[in-house]
């Protein structure tokens, strides 16, 4: 049995592994350009994401990683005070990976004019949320148990959730990436250099020239059949596991697994590739679940 870590210590540990970045840039403190930002200026935390496909209909981004964090913030109930902006290019983000959360300087007595806010990368968001929620609630004894279990019913469910997150992030993610089309225009693709600092897990590919000949292998062709097979199996397993429950694994409230599952299901249902969409639509309970969660998330995002 492990001892639960006190929250301040957890926030301290979330800073590690320490990475040193360039001098932090200062963000404009005047009102932002997106029409959904409230006019109260820099007093609110801001989440920078990839742009959504249709801002008038839904604020959910087109990028799976951004949707994951939007859903996480909304499901944990902190998104009412967070603005969303999508005019930041990915090269400006930490590790060149959106989403990032910008925390403005807190209103204090002796705040100096040149104090800059703090930009958090996505892996530091959970501990920030814990801190925010922890301030609003008086600490009780039950909170600690909840914290070890992270919102799941018991330890077995928590361990199982790791496996489900891995299934989502390997099988379904591979299918989405293999079939994603680049929405940028041809000219934009010509002038941008794709170079994420953190490489993604490679898809199932085979080189054009084969591996064992004397020609150096170049090029890669994605082998689509096993990827789609695994995607179909993963969806079937997800649907059977959800059954008719309100949240995955029978949790009483939304958990991290729910936000990850929602992000992937939403992207699958919005995908432009018909096979991906149709495969996801086959499972009625998943579609219904996604719709229900989407409505509740949109309601809290639009405040």
């Amino acid at each position, binding site marked *: 049995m492990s001892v639960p870590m006190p929250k301040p210590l957890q926030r301290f540990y979330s800073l590690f592994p320490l990475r040193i970045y360039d001098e932090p840039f200062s963000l404009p403190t005047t009102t932002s350009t997106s029409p959904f930002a409230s006019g109260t200026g820099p007093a609110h935390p801001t989440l920078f994401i990839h742009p959504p496909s249709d801002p008038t209909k839904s604020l959910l981004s087109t990028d799976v990683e951004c949707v994951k964090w939007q859903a996480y913030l909304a499901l944990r109930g902190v998104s009412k005070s967070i603005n969303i902006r999508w005019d930041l290019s990915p090269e400006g983000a930490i590790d060149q990976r959106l989403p990032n959360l910008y925390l403005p300087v807190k209103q204090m007595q002796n705040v100096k004019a040149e104090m800059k806010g703090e930009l958090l990368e996505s892996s530091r968001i959970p501990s920030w949320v814990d801190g925010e929620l922890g301030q609003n609630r008086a600490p009780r004894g039950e909170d600690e148990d909840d914290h070890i279990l992270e919102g799941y019913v018991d330890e077995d469910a928590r361990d199982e959730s790791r496996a489900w997150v891995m299934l989502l992030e390997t099988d379904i993610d591979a299918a989405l990436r293999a079939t994603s089309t680049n929405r940028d225009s041809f000219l934009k693709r010509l002038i941008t250099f794709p170079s994420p600092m953190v490489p993604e897990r*490679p898809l199932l590919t085979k*080189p054009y*020239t*084969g*591996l064992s000949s004397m020609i150096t292998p170049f090029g890669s062709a994605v082998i689509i059949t096993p990827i789609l097979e695994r995607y179909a199996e993963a969806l079937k397993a997800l649907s*059977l596991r959800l059954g008719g429950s309100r949240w995955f694994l029978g949790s009483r409230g939304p958990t991290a697994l729910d936000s990850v599952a929602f992000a992937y299901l939403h992207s699958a249902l919005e995908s432009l590739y018909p096979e991906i969409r149709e495969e996801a639509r086959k499972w009625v309970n998943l579609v219904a679940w996604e719709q229900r969660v989407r409505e509740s998330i949109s309601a809290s995002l639009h405040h």
Partner: protein
Amino acid sequence: MTHNTEITLYIWPHSWSLPSFDVDSLACVLYLQLLCANGQQSYALVECTDPDVSPTCSLPFLRHEGQEIGTARSILRYLQKLQGEEAGDDIASVKRTAWSAYVDSRLKDLTNAVLYANPENYRVGVHKVLATLLPVPARYYLPRRLREEIRATLEPAGMWNLQQENEENDGMEEKKRPFDKPKTIVDEKDKIINEAFGKEKLLEKARETFDLLNPLLAHHAFFLSKQVTPLDCQVAACILLLRNAQTAKNPIPALLDEFYPKIAEHSDRILSLAFPADEKAKAQVTVGVASHANPLVQLGRAVHRVIKSVSS
């Protein structure tokens, strides 16, 4: 279960008293052997060192009744379907699907990190085996290409540089760029500290994975089931390689024996079930060896592939 044509499985060859030195091939051989242990179904095992024989350019791959099936998980699923034990709709088999994805990434990454990422382990273990098995031209470039493929999978997960800070060259030369500064020489003391940190990082990742897998063996002899399933073979393949492979520095077997004896016993049990010592209970297996093709033939094959992919 009788079929008209025989199942042919192409795998990487045997080594270190195991049927194959590759994780995926070993998992497929174990499962196939378990299915055919009652002697009713015969299959052919082809030990192959040329990954281009397969349509996915990777071994293992399976041929049966005109179909060719590529990756390990697809092979296991196909074999399960043939057996008639299609993955059911009950909760346990659904959980096994999720765990299968977890094992296929985390545990396999851990095994590959121990075998391939650490240059000393690689030199003493896999590289030696490959160099003895491959014919002359391929012997010099194919192991490095395989290692680069594994590196592309391990680097995003952060498992590549675990046991060393600067990769030692050891005869594998990196291209020297013209304006490279000379690398700083690491002090002896720092080297020991780096190694200790690296070992701890590896053990930390291993403990994370085993802590999740250990409770699954609590109720039954196999993972979440009373009978052997493909998930068992996947886990057993990784554990058997971690324990039996020839390596220079491998802290994992000691960790397994001390803290996770159930997982170690499980893998031994799968191996003894698949290859029983009893002489009478042998499945009908024909073992063949596919020779590596002539370099000119390979060149022709590569050009043909390029033309096919350009014209299609």
